[in-house]
């Protein structure tokens, strides 16, 4: 069975029920609208409005969901402060996100958050952390559109207080 999703710019996406269920937000809306997998009529007569997602972003989200629709559900307790390790971004996901500059990633991250697709959200936040990894401060500033307001003397002081600490 298929589910109709309508974006903020009125684009309709018809997606597999399994893909729709990957979003906690869409799942809840379907429940509220009494749409069920076994009731084709309810799926055909309703569409899910997603006013916070544009068609361009939705297309990317669906592409990610298509790839991950058969993944085993991961039991990651959000507030469980113990025993959690770094999120590992799979090779496919790295490839999927590699050409997105920071602004695009933010839009995608916003959609993943609104749609409550935890795997995609974690992928993006880890990708942003990976983008920072190993870069120099001026490279990071350029990537994030940040104007450096530290004076050279201040930078020197910060370096002085931390440089001797590292192994």
């Amino acid at each position, binding site marked *: 069975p298929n589910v109709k999703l309508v974006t903020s710019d009125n684009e309709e996406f018809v997606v597999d029920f399994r893909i729709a269920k990957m979003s906690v937000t869409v799942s809840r809306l379907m429940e509220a609208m009494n749409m069920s997998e076994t009731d084709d009529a309810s799926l055909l007569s309703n569409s899910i409005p997603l006013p916070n997602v*544009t*068609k*361009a*972003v939705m*297309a*990317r989200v669906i*592409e990610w969901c298509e790839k991950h629709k058969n993944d085993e559900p991961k039991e990651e307790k959000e507030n469980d*402060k*113990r*025993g*959690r*390790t*770094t*999120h590992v971004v799979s090779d496919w996901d790295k490839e999927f996100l590699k050409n*997105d*500059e*920071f*602004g*695009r990633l*933010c*839009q*995608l*991250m*916003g959609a993943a*958050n609104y749609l409550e697709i935890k795997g995609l*959200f974690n992928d993006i*936040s*880890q990708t*942003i*952390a990976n983008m*920072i*990894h*190993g*870069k*120099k*401060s001026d490279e*990071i*500033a350029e990537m*994030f*559109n*940040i*104007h*450096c*307001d*530290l004076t050279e003397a201040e*930078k020197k002081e*910060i*370096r002085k*207080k*931390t440089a*001797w*600490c*590292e*192994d």
Partner: protein
Amino acid sequence: MGIILTLPNTFLDHFVRILPMRKKTIAEIPITKMDFFALPEAFIARVMRRIEIRDRLTLRLTCREFESLVSEAHAGYFDGGKIARNKRDKTKLFIAFGDSHSAARFTGFEFTEEGVEQCLYFLQKLFSTTSISGTFEIEFDEKVLTLDAVRKITKSFEFERIEFSVNSDSQLESSLLLMDDFPNTKYILVLRYIPSPEKISTLPSMEELHIRGEKTIDDEHNKFEIDSDLFFTLLGKHDNLCLDNVQISADNCDKALQIFLNESSVHSVEISLKRSAIVSWLRNHKITEDNESGDVCGEFTIAHISVSCMHLRLEYTHHISKKTCHIHIRATSSLWSDENARAVLCMEKEYEDV
């Protein structure tokens, strides 16, 4: 147009096949200039938790806002860590977070009160809180890594498990007091000296208790023995026990096995004791050096007996309750050769799936 028409059919077939694939990615997200700090706070916090320590240092040099963000943000999750006097250079402090590729080790701080203060300042600039999964090792010291110093450093930490290596009564006292600060944490206590039996018996329940007594000089070490009363007190109390110099009889080995099986919280027991006690216990159950792997002796099955008779693995199943455990006995020479020497008896249960 003309060019396309002259192309070979194979290419056209391929081109037609890739068209729908391209169509999927045509809807491109518009490029927007985005300032990192325009992200919702919750997003920033999530990203910050994933940034490695070294990168956090670089971020501090990017701008004032990042400088304060780094110090106010959660540092994420590290798998293990340690704070102790540096073993390679005893004039330095050793502090480490994590044991994977993202691990960070700091060995530049002097092993002095001033060095601890500098370390504290440094950590405060790097994160507000951090969570340590796995085991974080703490080694107290009477002068520098005192309870007060370690408390200051670990104030903003969340621990899954702390391992204390303790060499004196005062260090033991500090460890017990620090445990009060982290009531939901699991503990491993490694006693490298021998406290009084009263002190040992009143220790709170630990995930692991090791009594090694390495610091004691040989003669004193040989004199120290954990008698059967103290052993049975500890056996019912701690999840995993590892004890040197336990003095129990062959009959007490049976008693220990039954207590071990029936205490659901106890997972493993490893004790070193005189071979004479182990050999006599094995003989009571008709297990001798003539047995071979696969032999069944009452409730015991011999899983493996090494050619040198230095290692013996048994499977035990209680005839009524059907509870089972693995038993591993190891010695530095044939178990049956020198009954006055020591051997290690280890009992272990399977972890039950929760």
